């Protein structure tokens, strides 16, 4: 069991420093925008001026988490990102192919996937384990598993999160590739402090997580995962799913044979919009719901955002 001692999300919803948001957020409108705090309260001005959207979101959430958990330093910083620092990558690529002569280095420096984790360590002076996982739609679950391993190896508090940023060009790509997305492409960052010890701050517990690439039997894998945790589909009080184009009757077709009760299922993409690590938003949404509603004891986040990948995260209430 691993305790979620802090959670912080910046998204297109009023999630930041807003405990209980899950009880009153509405599905996203197409015109929604990223709701950001005044970053100056979280990030040193000297660093802030260079930071792109994904960096600002990540560092602010990280600092917010550390404040919530009341710890000086996490023992490690682990980040998952599907597409990394797209704004800086696009900017530098454009410069490489269009400018003759010397190029400004800042966007190159900040194009690497580990810029979020690096900037967090720099912002708080952290010398611990610092890792970045990037496996498209299951980057967050892979990062979460790494955090759980570290806690088993003896660390006490791990800062673990995920972030992705949208750029306009993603909309062009999705149109050209005929992706027919049912929700808008958005940006978001969610960070958590995962702790070995139970504490007063705990919102919920992570019982287990698994990331499966090139998956073939989705329902079989879900059943195995639950069985490994001595649980059946019927034991779940809530299932968070990404409602994607492979829908049928409100549930992904691949999950039809699980006989999930529809009133126990929530499509988290309706709230987060689409980005590769939206399952991290789902984990905060679930934890926030569990904190508010004690009847939610077992919650599964079933990340089928991309058909070839499956991410599973089982949360349990702190009391359970």
């Amino acid at each position, binding site marked *: 069991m691993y305790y979620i001692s802090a959670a912080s999300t910046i998204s297109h919803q009023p999630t930041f420093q807003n405990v209980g948001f899950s009880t009153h957020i509405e599905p996203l409108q197409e015109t929604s925008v990223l709701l950001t705090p005044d970053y100056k309260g979280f990030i040193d001005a000297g660093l802030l001026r260079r930071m792109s959207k994904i960096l600002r979101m990540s560092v602010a959430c990280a600092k917010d988490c550390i404040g919530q958990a009341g710890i000086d330093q996490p023992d490690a910083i682990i980040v998952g990102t599907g597409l990394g620092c797209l704004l800086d990558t696009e900017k*530098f690529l454009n410069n490489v192919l269009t400018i003759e002569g010397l190029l400004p280095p800042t966007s190159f420096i900040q194009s690497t996937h580990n810029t979020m984790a690096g900037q967090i360590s720099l912002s708080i002076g952290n010398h*611990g*384990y610092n890792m970045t996982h990037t*496996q498209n739609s299951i980057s967050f679950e892979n990062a979460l598993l790494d955090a759980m391993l570290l806690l088993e190896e003896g660390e006490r508090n791990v800062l673990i999160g995920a972030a992705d940023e949208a750029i306009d060009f993603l909309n062009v790509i999705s149109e050209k590739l005929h992706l027919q997305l049912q929700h808008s492409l958005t940006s978001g960052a969610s960070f958590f402090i995962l702790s070995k010890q139970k504490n007063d701050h705990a919102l919920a517990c992570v019982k287990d997580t698994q990331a*499966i690439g090139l998956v073939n039997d989705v329902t079989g894998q879900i059943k195995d995962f639950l069985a490994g945790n001595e649980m059946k589909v019927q034991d779940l009080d809530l299932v968070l799913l990404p409602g994607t184009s492979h829908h049928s009757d409100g549930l992904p077709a691949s999950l039809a044979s699980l006989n999930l009760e529809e009133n126990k299922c929530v499509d988290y993409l309706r709230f987060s919009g689409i980005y590769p690590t939206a399952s991290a938003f789902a984990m905060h949404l679930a934890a926030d719901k569990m904190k508010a509603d004690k009847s939610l004891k077992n919650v599964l986040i079933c990340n089928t955002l991309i058909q070839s990948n499956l991410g599973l995260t089982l949360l349990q209430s702190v009391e359970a």
Partner: protein
Amino acid sequence: MSVRVTGIGIISAIGLTVAENLRSLKESRSGIGPVQYLEEEEGLLVGEVKMSDQTLKNELGIGSKAISRTSLLGLKAAKEAWGENQHSKKIRTGIISSTSVGGMDRTEDFYKTYLAGTNPDYKLLKTHDSGNTTERIAAELGISGYINTLSTACSSGANAIMLGARLLLSGKLDRVLVGGSDALTKFTINGFRSLMIYDDQWCRPFDETRSGLNLGEGAAFLLLENDSSIDISGNKTIGYVNGWANAADAYHQTASSPDGKGATLAITNALEKSGFALSDISYINAHGTGTKNNDLSESVALRNVFGENIPSFSSTKSFTGHTLAAAGAIEAVFSILAIQHDLIFPNLNYKIPIAETGLEPVASLQTEKPVKAVLSNSFGFGGNNSSLVFSNHD
């Protein structure tokens, strides 16, 4: 607490196979030379893999579907490390690769046609994301389940090996292919030029006159197995991963700290994990990029940890160029080769010690001394420092 290595595979500027790489190392033959394959300024010094995308595709039996050079290089090395191994329901097998640019080479192809307005192929972009690079390798090898990619700039490959070892010890996997791959791209070449640390001459790690790095490309993979996997596979152990650590320098976005804090922590913690004494280390394969900043900071860290008794050390980037995310994996393969053949590889181009520290790397091939344990350093942007310890015993 060590993990067994049962297979290695590599492709780099100095060879397309393990045997070719070993031969070049023994003959002190560098792979750095004027650019041939990538469309770049004539005469630019790079460590290119001497094989075109088309030849790689043909050799690997890849059809016409878009695939990045990063995936092709990775697949070539992963296949060699995988060898004749078979899949078995009883062996939970995973793959952890690492890359810094992913499919950037194809994205550049796309973007050029996009900017020119000449009917760009959007499907090329499906190979852009780093995770796809690994998925393609996994798919060709028939691996499904645990498929992951790490991206921590120039320490990525070392981190993949570390994570693989931890997953085996935790019992999550029985067997895992770990490594990294990066293709040369205009993006990275121009990136390091914008930082003014790309040397127009042949790089000179640990030399007083060093003035930057040469980029290279390549890939390497190691096959790690636990005992139950080996019981089934019957594979011979060729080396052990005994220690590992990652630590953040938290000093600057690109530069290493003058006191080598992060590097010192990584080396110290990896040695502690291995349980080896300082004097047990026969050879250090240094990060040694050839930049003013890295080599000085790394020298300070070596001094911090080893004091006056620094083991024989060298940077092999004067052979391969700096292969970014692949570097940690390529140098892990070199570490295993050093142990298997009792070799200490030379630091080419070294003449004058760095004034501040006076450290002298090994300048010619050493064959006399037994090599039992090797420390390999990999340090990256964002102050990401990793060290690994390999040896011939558990």
